[in-house]
């Protein structure tokens, strides 16, 4: 067992506990909701049609989208009741996973209950059973194996889908998978997959045992299955029982630089005596709201992102003036403190292969516009929907032949291999220099500045120890060092973990 496996495994107990907790809660809530609904539906075909149609519709929404949808929904709800509802972490994940688990439970319960032999039901009526007695003595026991099969399906789905709850800030085994995919750390990805698959398989086997016990009326199997599940639940959730206070939550979006900076911030806070937790892989919109609600204590964002996404501005200001206005706006509207800029920029930069740049004498975005009808464009998944792309298109007459979206990990190889001819790279990415790509100059200043800025949650803005621990990072990181650091994580050979890289970066802070 090498060091990277040990490191990955070290994170498993806590994440497994959180994974079990969210999956079990969602499954339990889904049962509480869907079993009574199934009883009503089994007695009225009309209700059955409506209920099953709605549940099927929910099922067609991709899991990731369903999770993301709950975020604005809960924010709106929270605003409606005057705050207090957290749109971050456990609650949105619970609701989305619960909705997901409804259909298999409902469908099997309705099938099971309406499939009970009519003769048994007539006998129950003839014997003078009340509706409740009929359910208890006859319908429920006869439908139980089918209902149990539905719960089993729902359990496996829920455990699988729970890996996605990482994206709304609920820790799960998905943390390992998402972090691993971003930094191309396959040890992390495999560890996450291995444990979530093992969890799903063992739960499936145990519930299968209970189902068989019910079907064959062998009480011993039911009791044994339940006992093992209960024991597993207890052991799995044990790490959650350890009460810790003064925990700092550090947010990170879904790319390597964010992981590194989060660890850099985390290591300094640990030295200052705080207990640190990381929430990696968060969406841009979610992480800022989570910070406003103090669900996340600190994270690094970029000035242009706040400017366009949060402040809805599309005008251009000099860097310093822009930072001033952002600091005022976040403080006035969200109580968020902008501690300062880290000293480097990570903007959208159009990169081409060096041979193309030479042959077609490409230097600026105007030059790119000239040849754009022959060029295939590779971009990350969100750029084409972002206001920056609109701004570029307004400033330069760029019309690409074709556009394709990649995860950042695959965007750079796609350019190198000639699959695409130009990409919307990130200017601090180490893979630009490593591949010798040429960045085209934005001579008209169409793309806003993307200074990396450290943002603090309202409840930390007056925490002096906290601020003192992080203040040395302000204006301390050069773009060269950030590129090198990013490359240490992103490169294929001699990869470093974000934590190792953060240590390296910490030794090279500018005084």
């Amino acid at each position, binding site marked *: 067992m090498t060091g990277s496996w040990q490191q990955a495994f070290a994170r498993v107990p806590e994440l497994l506990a959180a994974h079990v907790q969210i999956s079990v809660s969602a499954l339990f809530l889904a049962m509480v909701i869907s079993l009574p609904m199934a009883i009503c539906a089994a007695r009225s075909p009309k209700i059955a049609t409506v209920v099953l149609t709605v549940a099927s519709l929910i099922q067609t929404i991709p899991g990731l989208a369903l999770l993301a949808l709950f975020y604005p929904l809960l924010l709106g709800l929270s605003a409606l009741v005057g705050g207090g509802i957290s749109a971050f972490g456990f609650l949105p994940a619970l609701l989305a996973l619960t909705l997901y688990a409804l259909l298999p439970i409902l469908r099997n319960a309705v099938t099971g209950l309406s499939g009970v032999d009519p003769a*048994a039901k007539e006998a129950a009526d003839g*014997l003078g059973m009340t509706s409740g007695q009929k359910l208890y003595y006859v319908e429920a026991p006869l439908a139980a194996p089918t209902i149990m099969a539905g719960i089993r399906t729902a359990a496996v789905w829920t455990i699988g889908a729970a890996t996605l709850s990482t994206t709304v800030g609920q820790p799960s085994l998905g943390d390992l998978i998402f972090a691993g995919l971003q930094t191309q750390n396959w040890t992390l990805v495999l560890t996450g997959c291995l444990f979530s698959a093992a969890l799903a398989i063992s739960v499936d086997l145990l519930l299968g045992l209970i189902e068989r016990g019910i079907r064959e009326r062998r009480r011993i199997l039911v009791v044994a299955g339940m006992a093992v599940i209960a024991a597993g639940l207890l052991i799995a959730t044990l790490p959650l029982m350890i009460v810790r206070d003064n925990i700092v939550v550090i947010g990170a979006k879904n790319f390597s630089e964010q992981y590194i900076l989060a660890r850099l911030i985390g290591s300094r806070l640990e030295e200052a005596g705080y207990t640190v937790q990381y929430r990696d892989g968060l969406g841009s919109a979610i992480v800022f709201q989570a910070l406003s609600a103090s669900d996340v204590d600190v994270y690094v964002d970029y000035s242009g992102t706040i400017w366009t996404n949060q402040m809805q501005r599309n005008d251009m200001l000099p860097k310093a003036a822009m930072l001033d206005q952002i600091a005022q706006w976040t403080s006035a509207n969200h109580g968020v403190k902008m501690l300062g800029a880290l000293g480097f920029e990570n903007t959208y930069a159009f990169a081409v292969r060096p041979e193309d740049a030479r042959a077609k004498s490409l230097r600026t975005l105007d030059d790119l516009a000239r040849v754009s009808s022959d060029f295939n464009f590779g971009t990350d998944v969100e750029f084409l929907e972002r206001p920056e792309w609109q701004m570029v298109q307004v400033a330069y007459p760029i019309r690409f032949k074709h556009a394709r979206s990649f995860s950042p990990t695959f965007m750079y190889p796609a350019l190198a291999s000639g699959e695409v001819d130009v990409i919307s790279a990130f200017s601090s990415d180490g893979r630009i220099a490593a591949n010798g790509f040429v960045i085209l100059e934005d001579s008209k200043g169409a793309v806003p500045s993307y200074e990396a800025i450290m943002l603090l949650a309202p409840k930390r803005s007056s925490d002096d120890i906290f601020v003192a621990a992080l203040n040395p990072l302000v204006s301390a990181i050069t773009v060269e060092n950030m590129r090198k650091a990013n490359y240490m994580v992103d490169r294929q050979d001699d990869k470093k973990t974000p934590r190792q890289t953060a240590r390296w970066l910490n030794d090279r802070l500018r005084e």
Partner: protein
Amino acid sequence: MRVSGPSISLNKVSRHYGKVRAVDSLSLEIAAGSLVALVGLSGSGKSTLLKMINRLVEPDSGAIRIGDEPVESIDPHILRRRIGYVFQNIGLFPHMTVARNIAIGLELAGENEARADRVAELLDLVELPQDMASRMPEQLSGGQQQRVGVARALATRPGLMLMDEPFGALDPVTRDNLTYQYKALHDKLGLTSIIVTHDMAEALYLADRILVMKDGQIKADATPADLLSGNVAEEAEALVAIPRAQAAHLIALSKLS
């Protein structure tokens, strides 16, 4: 062991399904302790009539009394617990042992004492061996299952038994056996029994009074002897003609040999 069954009275009872009059303004008095067969073709309304007595079907109009009590004054599930109900599809609970199936009525009534003794007594009564008690219904033959069905209906000592084609799905030998044994049980326990059947031969053999139904009304009401002697009603004559012709044919065959 002997209980005395109640009398039944129906006064202008009707039940419609859409435009079909399943039971059409029907009035009827059944004396306590009688064994009445309700005979008729499918769709004649005999099952509907039977099920209105234990309120499995509610009448649209008219009044039904058991003894002196109007049935609608009693909560349906309380009423049904006082009436034994046996039907063609038996409806044993497949997830319960034979013993628990038989005792389920006692369980519902909250009678927890000496349940096992009562089960043993009922198994004897329907002539099943005691070791059947621990078996599951699927391990029994059709005839054995219906014996359990009868035992289950008798568990709470009802005075009135309603039976809807009870032996219709059984083979002729088993059926004949059960019919004979049920008649004996009826007399022994002093029950009032109403048995729906489409088989006139069974009715002639079993009942002390036969009601022939057609289009929701009673077309003939006679003892088996009167029915056989003819001169009753056209509808009854058509049904009686079949067993009579079969009997004549059998006699003729036996003379030939």
